[in-house]
């Protein structure tokens, strides 16, 4: 790495790993509850587990984004981080607020609004924390020797993600209005500005790993994020089909949602083409695997599986069923979880000086977690399809349908176990790296890495 301050990313990546493990544990609690084994009901009822599971996801992905930004922005702008002590303060306050929120959920301290359950007083702390984070990143970027497209796209993604959090903090008496704005936050995050962040990180990784000319990669980055917004902004309409909005959203949401996979396909083609054009073979195979995984699985999970139930005529039957869980799991895994694992795999060897590029643990982590997640998606699909036919088409009561889907949750738990094994291997590698060291500070990291290959 170029600057010592970049190693603050290690704190954020460690936090991500801890929260990911917790997220998986709560996932298992829910899986078992669906099968009828809800022995923890008195202490961790389902609504606590689901809220904790989802918010841990959001917090560990955000932590990964922040770590990535602290690593990438100094490197891209060729400027030391504006203030390392402030960044440390930001890390600890972020971790404390996140952990407080998660503990609070177990005592009913929440807002009861899907994905935005963090209670209002903590919302203000989150907002303050994010402002501090953005100030550090922006001052680093603006005072930098160079302002690259990659760093601007990443930073703008982070700025707009923060701004879009605000509509979720307004209280409305009409739950349909509340829901309308909730999707401004959630949809415009995951199918909008988070993809700017994703595009920025992906383009940084591709520049480093493939050696393709920056100008070429950044040109296509504009095209990819352009397609994202072209389809994603009005694609928000697919959340407004059946939640109290006017009927024109059926047509507008349907058309633009159908275009959304194109943006993800563009991302895939972009990454694969850049890899094929690449003239240098970076020794960090694991970072390459995870980078390509992000580009490919995000298309499958977010693009194709999204399309599978986004058209109004289909969504009328699948809306509010386990089909959504099917799409959600592979989408988040492909687009965001893989991305964080990619930047961790790339940055850790450079920060610690330990060249874990291509070991067995790393490959086991990659294949077990991916196969596990794809099998989980298949289990959710089976359960979801059964639920749709039994409940929505044949008209059975909810619990009658739920009884019939229990075997699929058994499969889900088996698949989730394989997934967990993969994550354990990833964490073993993460621990093997140890902590960042000053010895790893050097100016031209990627070429150093090549020489030692």
């Amino acid at each position, binding site marked *: 790495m170029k600057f010592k301050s970049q190693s603050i990313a290690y704190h954020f990546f460690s936090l991500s790993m801890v929260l990911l493990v917790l997220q998986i544990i709560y996932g298992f609690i*829910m899986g078992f*509850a*669906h099968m009828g084994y809800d022995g923890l009901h008195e202490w961790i*009822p*389902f*609504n*606590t587990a*689901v*809220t904790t599971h989802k918010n841990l996801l959001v917090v560990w992905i955000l932590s990964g984004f922040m770590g990535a930004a602290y690593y990438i922005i100094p490197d891209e702008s060729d400027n030391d981080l504006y203030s390392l002590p402030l960044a440390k303060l930001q890390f600890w306050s972020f971790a404390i607020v996140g952990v407080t929120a998660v503990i609070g959920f177990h005592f*009913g301290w*929440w807002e*009861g*609004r899907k994905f935005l359950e963090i209670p209002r007083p903590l919302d203000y702390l989150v907002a303050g924390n994010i402002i501090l984070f953005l100030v550090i990143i922006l001052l680093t970027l603006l005072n930098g020797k160079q302002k690259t*497209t990659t760093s601007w796209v990443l930073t703008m993604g982070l700025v707009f993600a923060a701004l879009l959090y605000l509509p979720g903090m307004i209280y409305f*008496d*009409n*739950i*349909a*209005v509340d*829901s*309308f704005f909730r999707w*401004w936050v959630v949809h415009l995050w995951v199918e909008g500005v988070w993809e700017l962040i994703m595009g920025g990180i992906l383009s940084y990784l591709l520049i480093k790993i493939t050696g393709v000319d920056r*100008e070429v990669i*950044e*040109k*296509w980055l*504009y*095209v990819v994020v*352009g397609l994202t*917004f*072209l389809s994603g*902004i*009005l694609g928000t309409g697919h959340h*407004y*089909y*059946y*939640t*109290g*909005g*006017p009927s*024109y*959203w*059926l047509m*507008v949401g349907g058309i633009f949602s159908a275009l959304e996979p194109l943006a993800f396909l563009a991302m895939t083609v972009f990454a694969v083409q850049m890899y094929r054009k690449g003239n240098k073979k970076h020794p960090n195979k694991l970072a390459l695997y995870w980078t390509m995984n992000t580009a490919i699985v995000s298309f499958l999970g977010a693009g194709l599986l999204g399309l599978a139930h986004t058209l109004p005529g289909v969504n*009328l039957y699948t*809306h*509010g*069923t*386990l089909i*959504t869980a099917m799409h959600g799991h592979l989408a988040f895994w492909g687009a965001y979880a893989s991305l964080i694992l990619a930047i961790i795999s790339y940055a850790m060897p450079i920060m610690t000086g330990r060249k874990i590029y291509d070991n067995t643990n790393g490959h086991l982590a990659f294949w077990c977690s991916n196969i596990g997640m794809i099998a989980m998606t298949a289990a959710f699909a089976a359960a979801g399809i059964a*639920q749709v036919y039994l*409940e*929505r*088409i*044949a*008209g059975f*009561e*909810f*619990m009658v349908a*739920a009884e019939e889907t229990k075997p699929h949750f058994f499969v889900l738990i088996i698949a989730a176990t394989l997934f967990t094994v993969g994550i354990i291997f990833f964490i073993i590698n993460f621990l093997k790296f140890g902590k960042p060291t000053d010895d790893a500070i050097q100016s031209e990291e990627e070429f150093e890495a090549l020489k030692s290959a």
Partner: protein
Amino acid sequence: MLSKKQAKIFFLGGTIFFMLIFIGMSVHSLTVGIPENTNDSDITEEVKLGKLMWEESNCMGCHTLMGEGAYYAPELTRVYERKGPIYIKTVLNAPNGWGPRGRKMVKYDFTPEEVDGLIAFFKWMNNVELNGFPPEPSLKQ
């Protein structure tokens, strides 16, 4: 061949254009569409209390309403019509917590006013226009 500058214009132009359309449609939805579809004027103090209870109890953590929430317990958009107020009251007041077919619901200690609020909230929700959701089961015997 596309230049970087043209790509940038495509990105910025497209984003601003579609964002403006989205904001326009959102303003229309919020000022005309949603108030009409949801009978905004029917939202009484009782309904507001019910909505507050819905959120504070995190009902969405198990149930869905307008198809939104978790998938562990039934969809409640039309529960008022499907089950009726007496059934709902029985569920909310179940002394040991409701638990159909072994699936346990959290036991809440609602006051009578809060129970009435939730019932009023479900009654209001029952009349909300949702473009045909939830669909009528086509093969129901």
